[in-house]
């Protein structure tokens, strides 16, 4: 069995405003499929990625109802990545920066997400084989 690697990603972007979010989730997907231990430190707007109260909506411009629109919600992506990590013998440890959560009022996160601080970022980094920071603009 290949040695299990540990990677940490630090994210800052909100769910739907930047392609960086898409790429970050793609990278986490690849790592979880490989059964790696993956840590995510969500800072600033990224704490909204696993916000449990996200809701899909219809698309009046395209004439699609909610079911037809099938709007992707990042909270579901995060949950699916957690499941995939577990299925493949790895893990996804998602840490939301607590102060960033508070100022945004997004304390209700999906199960499995934990609240943390910059100290957690450093602990995750020190325990990882490598870290990728994807900052915002």
């Amino acid at each position, binding site marked *: 069995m290949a040695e299990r*690697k540990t*990677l940490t990603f630090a994210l800052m972007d909100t769910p739907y405003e930047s*392609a*960086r979010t898409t*790429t970050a989730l*793609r*990278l986490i997907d*690849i*790592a979880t499929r*490989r059964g*790696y231990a993956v840590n995510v430190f969500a800072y600033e707007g990224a704490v909204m990625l696993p916000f449990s109260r996200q809701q899909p909506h219809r698309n009046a411009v395209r004439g699609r109802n909610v079911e037809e629109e099938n709007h992707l919600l990042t909270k579901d992506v995060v949950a699916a990545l957690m499941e995939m990590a577990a299925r493949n013998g790895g893990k996804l440890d998602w840490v939301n920066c607590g102060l960033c959560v508070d100022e945004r009022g997004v304390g209700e996160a999906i199960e499995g997400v934990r609240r943390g601080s910059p100290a957690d970022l450093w602990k995750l980094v020190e325990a990882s*084989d*490598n*870290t*990728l*920071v*994807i*900052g915002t603009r």
Partner: protein
Amino acid sequence: MARYLIIGSRCSFAAGEADFCRDLVCRLAPADNRVTLFLVQNGVLPARAGARGSSFADLACIGVEILADDFSLRERGISSDRLQPGITPAALDVVIDRLVDGAKAIWR
């Protein structure tokens, strides 16, 4: 020998971006480092053959490995036969490969 992975996500047509990223890559490469420039998102736009003011040939000449995310290329309708010389389409998996290989990764 150090390994660097520069992930270029921004379109280098924007003022200042091309210069800074290119300069960074050029400075790291000759110092006996292994440098990979991985283009992703709008960072692949200048990779299209014929794009003005954005040649990657000089980077390839100094040994920089230049890859472009195949997903981003498809999204933007850039086929692999329409890339500038020296640029190779690659799966995003390469980023994970380089990370676990210990490359210092810098996202731009």
